């Protein structure tokens, strides 16, 4: 196989979309860690990162940094709104799985609102730095950089800040954390804000590649969930590995066999892995039930 002509582009775009999927996976995990809820809004946050970035920087003409900060803040707010509207009210009855419905409803609302108020066509996303070209263009490595930055920052936060440790504590044993007097509710809200920011970052960093397009939300939702399922729920490293692997697999299939078969292949692989290892490839076993 010709490296420059096929392998390099597959690697470039595979790692790039893989990094976006991985970050969406981290978004899922971050929400899950403090609430045991998986939210359909995760992918929509990624979509919003692209759309809002384009809105602020291109349409409203703000400077890059202002647009970036506003995008991340707006996505963080959407994350918090998710917690308030779709998660907290159903938290008491987690076993009824009402969160599947409430977050699906909110995700649909976000997507439809964007389709109507923004555009149903993909819109341009600003060229951020103008660095690189070809397979080394910034649009390919920005998502990877964002992914590396996020995972690094998360690890740093968890290891070296008290808030980070508190997140871990709440995630490991919510009840014990509460009994210690940790502000569990605030931490949960904060984790949704953080998840929103991570999702927004994924969409923003991937904006040049994926454009500001409302339908990206649905794509991110599914393809961002696959790494979570593969890597094991709540396992960020698993998500990163799973996301990058998915991106490479998908793009390779895309380039080698064509679009439709690529999605069918991804879906079948997803189902087979899940049925064979419902806890994911890096997951741990289930809790007691009785």
């Amino acid at each position, binding site marked *: 196989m010709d490296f420059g002509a096929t392998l390099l582009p597959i690697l470039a775009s595979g790692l790039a979309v893989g990094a976006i999927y991985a970050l969406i996976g981290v978004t899922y995990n971050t929400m899950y860690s403090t609430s045991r809820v*998986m939210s359909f809004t995760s992918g929509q946050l990624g979509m919003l990162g692209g759309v809002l970035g384009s809105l602020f920087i291109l349409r409203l003409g703000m400077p890059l940094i202002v647009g970036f900060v506003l995008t991340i803040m707006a996505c963080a707010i959407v994350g918090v709104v998710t917690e308030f*509207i*779709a998660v907290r*009210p*159903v938290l008491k009855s987690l076993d*009824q*799985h*009402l969160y*599947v*419905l*409430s977050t*699906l*409803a*909110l*995700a*649909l*609302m976000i997507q*439809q*609102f964007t389709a*109507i108020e923004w555009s149903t066509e993909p819109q341009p996303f600003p060229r951020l730095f103008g660095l690189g070209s070809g397979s080394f263009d910034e649009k390919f490595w920005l998502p990877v950089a964002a992914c590396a930055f996020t995972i690094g920052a998360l690890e740093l936060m968890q290891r070296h800040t008290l808030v980070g440790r508190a997140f871990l504590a709440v995630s490991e044993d919510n009840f014990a954390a509460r009994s210690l007097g940790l502000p569990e509710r605030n931490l949960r809200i904060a984790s949704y804000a953080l998840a929103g920011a991570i999702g927004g970052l994924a969409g923003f960093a991937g904006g040049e590649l994926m454009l500001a397009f409302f339908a990206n939300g*649905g794509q991110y939702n*599914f393809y961002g*969930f696959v790494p979570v*399922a593969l890597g094991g729920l709540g396992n960020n490293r698993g998500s990163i590995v799973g996301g990058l692997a998915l991106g490479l697999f998908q793009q390779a299939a895309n380039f080698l066999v064509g*679009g*439709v*078969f690529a*999605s*069918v292949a991804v*879906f079948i692989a*997803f*189902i087979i892995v*899940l*049925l064979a290892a*419902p806890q994911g490839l890096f997951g741990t076993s289930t809790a*007691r*039930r*009785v």
Partner: protein
Amino acid sequence: MTVETTTSVTGLRNRPFGAARSERWSQLAPYAALAAIAAVLPWIGNEYWAVIGTRAAIYWVLVAGLNLIVGFAGQLAIGYVALLTLGAYTTSVLVAGNVIPAVPLPLAFGAATVIGAVFGLVVGLPALRLRTFYFAMSTLGFATIVTQIALAWKSVTGGGIGIVAPEFPAPFNTPWGFYGFCLIVAAIATWMSANVAHSRFGRALVAIRDAEVAAEANGISKVQFLVPVFLLGGAMAGIAGGLFATLQTYVTPDAFTFDLSVLFFIAILIGGRGSILGPLLGTILLTILPEFAAPLAAWSTFLYAVLLLVIVLAVPGGIADLIDFKNRRPLTDAREIQPQPALLSRVIARQPGSQPLSLRNVVLAFGGVRALDGLDLDVQPGRVHGLIGPNGSGKTTALNVISGYYAPQNGSVALGGATLELGHPESRASHGIARTFQTPRIVGEASVLENVMIGATVTGRATFLETLLALPRRATDERVLKAKATAALTAVGLETLADIRANRLQHSELRFVEIARALMLSPAFLLLDEPAAGLSADEIDRLGSLITEISRQGTGVLLVEHHADLIFAICERVTVLNLGRVLAEGAAAEIRVHKEVVSAYLGA
């Protein structure tokens, strides 16, 4: 819905004959009203109404099946439009004859039914292994894939250009003719889904949804009960797909939007889980609503989503809850549970067996903690056996090993000569082992009587197909189960609450409901996990005599309990556990004065 065989069984007063009949009519009245409206529509409306009515009928054919999966079994299949797509393409392709020689319309519909059923199963199977959200995602993925394949497989599906849908022969080739046909299919679908819903299958599905652990203890295996409804749901979606194609006149992939999936799904939730009338009304509402709100077309999906959110947060019970007037009537506060142990013989009627339930050298460790450390235990039939010990001594764990929730690392559980399979809780009911739970596991949205009937799910004779078609054995099953459940409820003293929704009951009443449910198996052994917790002193006394009487019927009772007075009042033998081992075992009187035991029980 059989009337009054209960009187003869229990020999007690029950609802008067006429009351049951009028209740039955009040249940059927809404359907009759809908049928009447549907029947007069051709005389008051135009063909536009015919198309909308037809669409509602077709969607309902699908939703009626999906309702059993989502509304009853609680499996969140959100990508069901995929099966509609399959049905539409199957009939169209077969009738068009572009792949194999054209087949007649009825045959094509037969094929759509089969293909729908097969893929209904394929879509559903992951539910047996995957968690809710994962399953929802996998159905979503499946929907995407089916559309993509429809686009790509041009030689069969016509790709984006699509394929001509089959036309119906006269008299069904006019809007009103086709409307009539779809109405009949919808009526049959309603009838079939009601047959399933009001049978042991329907109750088992609801149990899987709301009380999965209890369902297993009652012998309800997910595979056995979900597989038939996945097949049925798929088959009905396949038929709906064929009808949908004809209504559309032409099948293209872009007709099968995700919005349609959302519509089906929301129709069920708006209607209310575990109801048939509710989702039917929901389907009609969601089909008609956009027609009145044409200016809002662009926002329709958004508004559906808002509706979904509002329903989930504000009215989780949906329409069915709003129109459930029966359960609005306040219950009297001053009600007492008055068991009638004398009536137990009608429920249990078991020849005293001679086979003990034995645990031998059972070892079960969680991580490094040995919850059971070589436990030996024999429970004799027809006796009450107490199991006591401090917290964490392994009492409940022992119960869970017997009832199959935990598979111990070592040791065996045997009933007489037969070794029980370790793990596999759903296999215990067939061995005659029933149990209750520390926290009552009840289907809150079902009536008390239905909850009790769940207990004898495995004893039903009618197959799923017989149930679907309301063949005689289904009616027999219902009659027998209902009579037995009424008798069991009377025996535990709750017969007056039979028709009340279970989530309206007090905690103490739920404990007795669980016992009644367990009695439905006529169990050889009954495992009770802290049945007295949360009961008043009087209630505990009544519980005690009920348990004693149960054992006199030949049932062996293993009683895990903290209330020492109850234990020593009714147990013939008592085993004391500590740190997963037997600390002492003997007659109740010996144990009571056993120095070591007293201090262990107090906490030594």
